[in-house]
């Protein structure tokens, strides 16, 4: 039972530390806290998916960059599309820096857009950073009449989706509501690859909400052979690979629409978000943020990510802070436009 004893020791030292808040050497306080400790990295999904793969990769490397070199233990805590975890981290998890987590990229905007079941204030999370600034695309199969965004004025595009709330559904719904009526969503496919198979056999014409990094890693032959057309980029900034493909925000007709689109696609910036509960000691948050940044620059980490084909476009915690406060400052018009835009309207 000695690990338990270790917990006790760590706990006592923690108690001791809280008595000595004004210890002059801060770095040591952080390092003392993390030394010999296990830091839990909670994943809002079950094992095997994208969020899980990213998190487990991070867990292998993050520990050595945190003062005191704690062990990072990834744990899956699935439930309600990771909402359970978001609520858990905000309300229940210890606010001492011993728990960090990752959940759905759109979660931070949920209180604004639907608010269903959210019991947190996204501004208050201690954002550590995002491993990837995702760029998703809309693509059509080569046999479809729709080869560019302009073609959508004349022809219908049937896209496949994996179910309500998924990017494959939300993104085409937003496009249908704000940009073109000619996009039709057939939803219910068990997974993204099922949509691609349906596209190959002609059941649907395309897929919206397809991460560009996945297109490159899994479907490079389709790209090379011209079997798919990339119509539009769904993100706030263009991917360096795709300078000539338009960005979704270019299709906004006024400021409110632009803000609404930004509000919805902000999730792409925090594509693989990492955060700690609100109100953790500031020195530990700084240490975690520094460690996160150091990890993303760590050649071993990058080599591992490259080997398993995970795209890395790190975003810092500070940047996420700024983005979220900007979003929460959006005008009421923009918010209501956005929350209507993500709901499937009749006849789609």
């Amino acid at each position, binding site marked *: 039972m000695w690990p338990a004893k270790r917990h006790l020791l760590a706990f006592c030292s923690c108690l001791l530390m809280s008595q000595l808040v004004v210890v002059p050497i801060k770095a040591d306080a952080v390092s003392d806290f993390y030394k010999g400790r296990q830091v839990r990295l909670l994943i809002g999904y079950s*094992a*095997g998916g994208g969020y899980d793969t990213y998190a487990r990769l991070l867990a292998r490397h993050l520990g050595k960059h945190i003062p005191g070199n704690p062990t990072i233990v990834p744990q899956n*805590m699935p439930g309600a599309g990771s909402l*359970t975890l978001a609520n858990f981290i905000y309300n229940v998890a210890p606010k001492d820096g011993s728990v960090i987590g990752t959940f759905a990229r759109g979660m931070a905007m949920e209180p604004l857009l639907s608010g269903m079941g959210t019991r947190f204030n996204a501004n208050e999370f201690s954002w550590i950073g995002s491993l990837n600034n995702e760029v998703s695309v809309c693509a059509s199969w080569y046999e479809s009449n729709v080869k560019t965004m302009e073609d959508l004025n004349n022809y219908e595009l049937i896209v496949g989706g994996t*179910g309500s*709330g998924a990017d494959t559904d939300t993104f085409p719904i937003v496009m249908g509501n704000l940009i073109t009526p000619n996009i039709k969503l057939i939803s219910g496919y068990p997974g993204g690859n099922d949509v691609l198979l349906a596209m190959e056999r002609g059941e649907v014409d395309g897929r919206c909400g397809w991460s560009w990094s996945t297109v490159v890693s899994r479907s490079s032959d389709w790209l090379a052979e011209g079997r798919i057309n990339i119509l539009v980029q769904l993100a706030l900034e263009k991917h360096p690979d795709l300078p000539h493909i338009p960005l979704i925000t270019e299709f906004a007709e006024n400021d409110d629409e632009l803000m609404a689109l930004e509000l919805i696609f902000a999730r792409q910036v925090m594509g693989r978000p990492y955060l700690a509960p609100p109100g953790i000691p500031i020195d530990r948050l700084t240490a975690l943020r520094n460690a996160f940044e150091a990890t993303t620059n760590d050649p071993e980490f990058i080599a591992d990510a490259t080997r398993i084909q995970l795209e890395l476009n790190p975003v810092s915690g500070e940047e996420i802070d700024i983005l979220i406060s900007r979003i929460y400052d959006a005008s009421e018009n923009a918010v209501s436009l956005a929350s209507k835009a993500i709901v499937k309207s009749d006849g789609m």
Partner: protein
Amino acid sequence: MEAGALELAVNALSVMLEPSRLILLGAGVLVGLTIGVIPGLGGIVGIALLIPFTFEMDAYSAFAFLIGIGAVTTTSDTVPAVLFGVPGTTGSAATILDGHPLAKTGHAGRAFGAAYSASLLGGLAGAFLLAVSIPALRPVILYLGSPELLAICVFGLSMVAVLSGKAALRGMVAAGIGLMIAMVGSDPQTGTMRWTFDTFYLWDGLPLVPVTLGLFALPELADLAIGKKSIGRVHSVNTRSGQFQGIRNTLQYWWLVLRCSWIGAALGAVPGMGSAVIDWLAYGHALKTEKNTEKFGNGDIRGVIASESSNNAKEGGALVPTLAFGVPGSASMAILLGAFTMHGLVPGPGMLTDNLDVTYSIVWSLALANVFGAGLCLLLSNQLAKVASIRISVLLPLVLGIIFFGALQGSRQWGDLNVLFAFGLLGWIMKHLGWPRPPLILGFVLGDIVERYLFISVNRYEWTWLSRPLVILFFTLAIVGLIGPLLRNLKASFKSDQTKSFLPKFSMSAFFTLIVILFLTIYVLLASQWNFEARIVPLLVGCTALMCAILSLINQVFFQQSGNKTSNINENTSQSNIDDVSVGFTKHMMVEGCIFFGNCGLFILLARVTGMLLAVFLFVLLYMCFWGKEGLSRAALFSLGVTGFSWLLFDRVLSIPWPQNFLGSIVPVLGPFLK
């Protein structure tokens, strides 16, 4: 081309036979076997956990290791299924029906022999089918659109009729309940929260693991507790010779093995058709096509063979869409798919041309893993079979403790234990009142996928998809398979007793039916408030189930002579007796059953207060001492053993996040110790 492929296949074999790879394959098999034995843990857990260890390996070794894990969980899951009636993974529930009765009559060895040899042959058949169909894979899969997949799933659902035996109406109701339970949670079309009652737990729907463990494992354990006898009453049976008899049985029924393997492999390729239904479909097929099936459900070795050969063949089938299109045929394949990418392999046509050598090495891994797994199990089963003769006062608390941990793997929330409890009670009542349970699990697993493909088909093709040839074929098969037995049974049950008195009789069974009707009514009423896309399928299913339930009630109250007795004799003499129906409830059973489920309920409360580890320790200790009348020191030893084992496995190795307990949250100092 042919010669080239053959050469590649042979080369791949020689690559696989290199000692280092064989060792890795063996290690994978050991992990897989261990995971398979523990209820609640399936291949998914093992593969997900060990993927990081394959980063440094070459592609061949990595797949040898991972497939070793995935391929054999359905071999060793037979062990708890036969011994305790507890499915080791969701794929061995059908094995319980005949395997467990065999163990009860002292034939555990024979059941093991048959199960492992059937697993082996099934696994080999699956691998073989994968190998020979490689050239034809892509066109076939491209031909199967959503309407075809829907038709196949509906055909699978129609097996409900066969699996219900004479209780066709109740089977329909059970399937209806299963379908409705499958629709709990966020609706894929509109995001409507269906039947979630404002709890987060139900948002993602009910998890399969606690439902299966509840429906099939708890009722068996409840009856063990009531009977208070050790499982294998005949102690002197020579398990080794029984084992050989089992192997001979498998060879004797080779044609059944082959058919069930094909079913397993073919259905394994359909996304969404998991191992949780494939064993039942094979079992249903055996019931339908074999002669002299009256002993099915009471220890017919063919039941074990059918179930076991199909669920090992499944992996081969599930690899088909995974390799050829990157569409995972099962949950563990989805994770394996991740491993492909990590090793630079892109699923798709390339796997059948440029990377054909890797594909063949996967086929060989699958075949070799099955040989290793079955061989090892056969070697060990002699010892394992002896477990059945351990005193029930020791065994029951231990198995219960493990099941609680297993159920919690569903979604790692306290709700999992509630689900286990609720379905345990439901399963126990169903078992004793002659309600078939397999249809419920069939409906539960297929419900989601049927609704998804139905919406895709209708939204995409309106109704023209109904004229597609394969759709017509499978729908016709389904209708014939469903309506035929239903009408026959209805006629028989309404007619047989018409000459008898028309005095209404209200038995316990009728009372239960009434509760079911009430439940269905409430659910239908709740569903009627949702928007159209969210409510249409639940209403359709709910109303059909309601109608069947009402018919069943009328049948029970007016057309059956004297409640339980007659109805049960009917069930027992039916030629396809699926559920081992005992005669209703005696007073003794009611009392003991209440004690058993009461204890389980108390455990769940205790766990919420003190956390799982302490609760299981106390539960096993107290249960052994007071109920089992074991000595304190022995009880302490066992309860410490099971708690320590679970702590090591779940906390240290699997590192699961334990749900919050009350004591830990009010006294944070205790938090780290209460898990």
